[in-house]
């Protein structure tokens, strides 16, 4: 495989990412399933890099899941997004930082629609004004938060306490990068590195010492795919997509999967429990399942943060095998304790625990 060919493609897809004054919009499901990720992003940006990142308490869901599930019409979601832009304008921000890949896809799709069909933009202005009396501007700069961590990947590498190296073998860790479909497949120009060979997560992995695994089903859907999962009768299809991915990556012996999409993280993590329970199948080396991390969690680990402060214990597949490979120190007794030291209930049937 020729890395130069990938570099040539990446040079064609360099996006401009703002470096300060972000209007931050959270994800609906990331806050619930891996809450340490967004928390770490805000801490890193504000306290480590000293950036201005603002959250508006009136921000709501983008309704993307409803839109893709055919229960929210296009005119409605455009108005909801316009309201977010109005909140941004009222707060005095022009750069939007989006935590969720579904939302990111929604924002890009809507902005592109407005560019090509200005009448839709006019209609949206009218709907928002009638509904709320608000006015909005289209953001000057739009980045997914993985773009922002990508932008600062070398600063993180400079401050790194741990590298993506297997301490026992001295070899780089094999990392599967799982890019959300709605990050750049619809509009390659909005993604770092484009759609076919994106570099947003690969850039972090290599900067932090790891090796990216390029396996045959790399581009395939994680198994979320909205209708595959939201319609209960289709869930077998969702699972079969995830099985296809894991079976394809298995020969490459990945040490972990890195994701930038809440759906990918949730499904690649939780379906491993289902696959193990239904079939007794695991796809990692040494009879283990493969930990699935968000890029914020990984950045936090590399920088030496306590894995339990980053929320790794909230995944279904536990990360201890990875922590050991990287030589990360942790206290197993703290895993399910609150910050003030109270013991929380310990979940049963976790994988790799």
């Amino acid at each position: 495989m020729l890395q130069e060919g990938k570099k040539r493609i990446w040079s064609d897809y360099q996006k401009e990412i703002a470096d300060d004054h972000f209007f931050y919009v959270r994800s609906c499901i990331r806050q619930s399933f891996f809450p340490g990720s967004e928390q770490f992003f805000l801490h890193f940006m504000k306290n480590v890099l000293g950036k201005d990142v603002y959250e508006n308490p009136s921000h709501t869901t983008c309704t993307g899941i409803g839109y893709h599930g055919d229960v929210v019409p296009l005119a409605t979601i455009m108005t909801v997004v316009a309201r977010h832009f109005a909140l941004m304008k009222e707060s005095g921000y022009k750069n939007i930082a989006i935590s969720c890949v579904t939302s990111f896809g929604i924002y890009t799709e809507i902005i592109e629609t407005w560019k090509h069909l200005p009448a839709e933009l006019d209609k949206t202005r009218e709907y928002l004004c009638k509904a709320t009396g608000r006015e909005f501007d289209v953001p000057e700069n739009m980045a997914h938060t993985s773009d922002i961590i990508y932008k600062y990947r070398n600063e993180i590498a400079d401050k790194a306490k741990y590298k993506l190296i297997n301490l026992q073998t001295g070899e780089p860790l094999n990392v599967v990068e799982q890019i959300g479909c709605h990050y750049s497949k619809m509009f390659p120009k909005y993604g770092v590195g484009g759609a076919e060979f994106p570099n947003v997560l690969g850039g972090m992995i290599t900067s932090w010492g790891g090796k990216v695994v390029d396996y045959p089903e790399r581009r395939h859907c994680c198994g979320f795919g909205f209708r595959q999962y939201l319609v209960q009768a289709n869930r077998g299809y969702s699972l079969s997509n995830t099985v296809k991915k894991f079976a394809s990556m298995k020969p490459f012996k990945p040490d972990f999967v890195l994701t930038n999409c809440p759906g990918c993280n949730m499904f690649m993590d939780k379906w491993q429990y289902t696959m193990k329970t239904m079939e007794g199948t695991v796809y990692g080396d040494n009879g283990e399942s493969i930990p699935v991390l968000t890029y914020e969690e990984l950045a936090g680990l590399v920088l030496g943060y306590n894995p339990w402060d980053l929320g790794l214990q909230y995944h279904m597949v536990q990360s201890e095998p990875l922590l050991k490979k990287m030589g990360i120190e942790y206290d197993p007794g703290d895993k399910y304790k609150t910050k003030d030291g109270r013991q929380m209930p310990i979940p049963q049937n976790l994988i790799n625990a």
Partner: protein
Amino acid sequence: MPEKRKEVIIIGAGAAGMEAAGQLARADYKVTVFEKEPKTGGHVKDWYHLFPDSRDSGEVIEYLDKQLDHKNIILRTGTVVENIKKNDGTFVVRTSDGGEISSDAVIVATGFDLFRSERKEEYGYGIYDNVITSSDLEAMFRKNEIKRHDDRIPEKIGFVHCVGSRDEKVSNLYCSKLCCVTAVKQAMEVKKHIENARVFCFYMDMRMGGALYEELYKESQERFGINYIRGKVSEVSENINNKLVVKVEDTLAGRPLKMELDMLVLMAGMEMSESGLKLAGASGLKTGENRFFSPADHHFGSNKSKIKGVFYAGACTAPLNITETISHARAAVADVIDYFRNPKS
């Protein structure tokens, strides 16, 4: 006082330019041929055998070289023509070395560029070692070495038709016309080199619109057992054993197909040459939606530009095979002579 002998400048020394030069020289016109590359012969010299009769391309080159070998022809290789300016019925051509030369007529024969296959990112050309182009395969034929990157002989080989042709995503809506028959020819050639190879052609439509093409297509199936699968390849990747994994929709069977291959050949289409595009922009020559030079009239003036005295020859106007290119070049010569004899018509 005898009339001054007319002079013609030809831009490009591929098949069209060389043929036109020879025809004009024999008709006693003075000809200067500019070629941007160090060697003449255009794309023909990079090919091994030609369809439909497996003629060695060297024979065509030999014929074209003879056309240029004439006392009335001056050949200037390694020289790019930057623009053409018309001045009172005389044409002044400016070259990359800062020179200027004038003539009474100009034939533009800038040919085509092969589509840069790396632009179809999903096929992984330039990334996966065993994804090659039709042009790369011709070079292998010439060396009599069809090998994978790891020196192993490929046993299972795929051909992807329409790479950069009939493809809105790369702004090429037109058919390059020659890739289908080239794939048929190359697939047969592969089987001649590697008897046990299994060969698959992934096509949208088999466009066999030339003399003996259909016969070649039939022979490829009956005699060589080439498999034709109607469907567009959607993506290529590599597995742990360094085999290529190709996903394609088999539209006749009505189902997706995933196949492991040892080698994949991309049938690169034809595009207006970059040098032709620059020349068009700098000289006020019209190009069409397909970006090739747009003739004054598609039926009656396919060699004429909108500038009187500037003519087109060959694949700078559209994808053409060698036979068509040579005929087109001869027609350009006929138009030049008619222009000299009847300047007011």
